[in-house]
C-alpha cells in the first residue's frame, strides 16, 4: 500500500507519495450515484442496508451525478434508458468509475436475442471498470466487485487513469 512508509517520533507526521495519498482517498470514499434499474437494484439496496453495509467501504448514495464518483449499472438497460445513463455519466465529475452489475448490464442477459428494446451491454455506451456476473449477483458479489475496483484505483497514476 505504501501509505505508511515511515513514522516519525512526532505522531502527527506521515511520509508518503502524493499518488498513494490521492488513490487512498479516492478508493476510500467512492460516493455512489443513487441509481437503480431492475432486480439487481434490489440486491444493490440490500448491499447498502445494515447487514452488508456498503457504507463501511465509504460508499454513500448521492442524489446528484455532480457529487458522485461511481455509478453502478444495476439492471436491464433499455435503449430508452441508455441515452439517459449516458447523460448522467457525462454529468459526473472526473475521476469517475462504473461497475456493471449483473448479466443484463454486462451483455443483455436473457434479452440478448429477442430484446428489441434492450442494450446488449452497457459498455456499448460508456466505459466499464468492473463487471460483476450474476443474475442478479448476491451482495457478496457486488462487494467483491467494489473491492476489485478499489484495487484498480490503488494502482492508478496521477498522469493517467488506468
Amino acid at each position, binding site marked *: 500500500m505504501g501509505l505508511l512508509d515511515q513514522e516519525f517520533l512526532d505522531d502527527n507526521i506521515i511520509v508518503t507519495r502524493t499518488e498513494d495519498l490521492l488513490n487512498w482517498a479516492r478508493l476510500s470514499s467512492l460516493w455512489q450515484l443513487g441509481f437503480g434499474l431492475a432486480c439487481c437494484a434490489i440486491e444493490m439496496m440490500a448491499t447498502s442496508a445494515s447487514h452488508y453495509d456498503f457504507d463501511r467501504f465509504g460508499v454513500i448514495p448521492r442524489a446528484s451525478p455532480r457529487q458522485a464518483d461511481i455509478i453502478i449499472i444495476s439492471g436491464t438497460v433499455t*435503449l*430508452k434508458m*441508455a*441515452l439517459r445513463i449516458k447523460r448522467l455519466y457525462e454529468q459526473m465529475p472526473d475521476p469517475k468509475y462504473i461497475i456493471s452489475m449483473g448479466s443484463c448490464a454486462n*451483455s*443483455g442477459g436473457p434479452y*440478448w*436475442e429477442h430484446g*428489441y*428494446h434492450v*442494450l*446488449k451491454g452497457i459498455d*456499448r*455506451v460508456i466505459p466499464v471498470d468492473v463487471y460483476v456476473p450474476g443474475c442478479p449477483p448476491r451482495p457478496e458479489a457486488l462487494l467483491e466487485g467494489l473491492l476489485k475496483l478499489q484495487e484498480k484505483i490503488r494502482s492508478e497514476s496521477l498522469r493517467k487513469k488506468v
Partner: protein
Amino acid sequence: MKSIEEICNILKDKFPDYEIQLNTEYSTDNFLILKSENLFEIALFLRDNEETLFDSLMVLSGVDDANGEKKKEEDGSETINGGTLSVFYHLYSIKLKHKLTLKVSSPRENPEIVSVSSIWLTADWHEREAYDMYGIRFLNHPDLRRILMPYDWEGYPLRKDYKNPEFYQGMKIPY
C-alpha cells in the same frame, strides 16, 4: 350475476341491427365479437345498464391475429399482408360480480378502433400501449402517444412480422 349467453341476449334485444357473435370455439373464456363501429355504443350500454353494470375494465390488450397472407423474405423473415389486428376488452362488474370479454378487429393495413377511454379511464394507458406495440389507432383518444417505447421509435414491436432495427440513435441493437 349473468352468464355470457344471457348478456349476449340482452345485447341482441337492445341492438337488433348490430352484428354480435358469441364465440365458443376456444378453450378459454367465451367472448363476444363486435363490429368496430358499434363498439362505443355497446360499451356504454354495458356500463350503464342495470342488468350488466360493467363498472370496471380489467384489461384491454392488442393482438396480432396474423391471419393475412404470409410471405417469406430472402433473409428468412416474414411479412404479413392483409388480415386483422384485434383488441380484447376484459370487463368486470364489481357490483354484480360477473365478467365479459369482447373482441373487436380492424384491418391490418389501416387499424382504427374507437377509443373507450371516455367510458373507462383505465383504457387511456392500455390503448396507448396497444398503439405502441401494434400500431392500432384509437379514434377520439385524448393523448395517443407511445407509452413504453421512445417517441421516435419506428415500427410496432409486437406485430408478428416485426423486424429488429440495426441501430437506434447510434447504438447497435443486435447482440
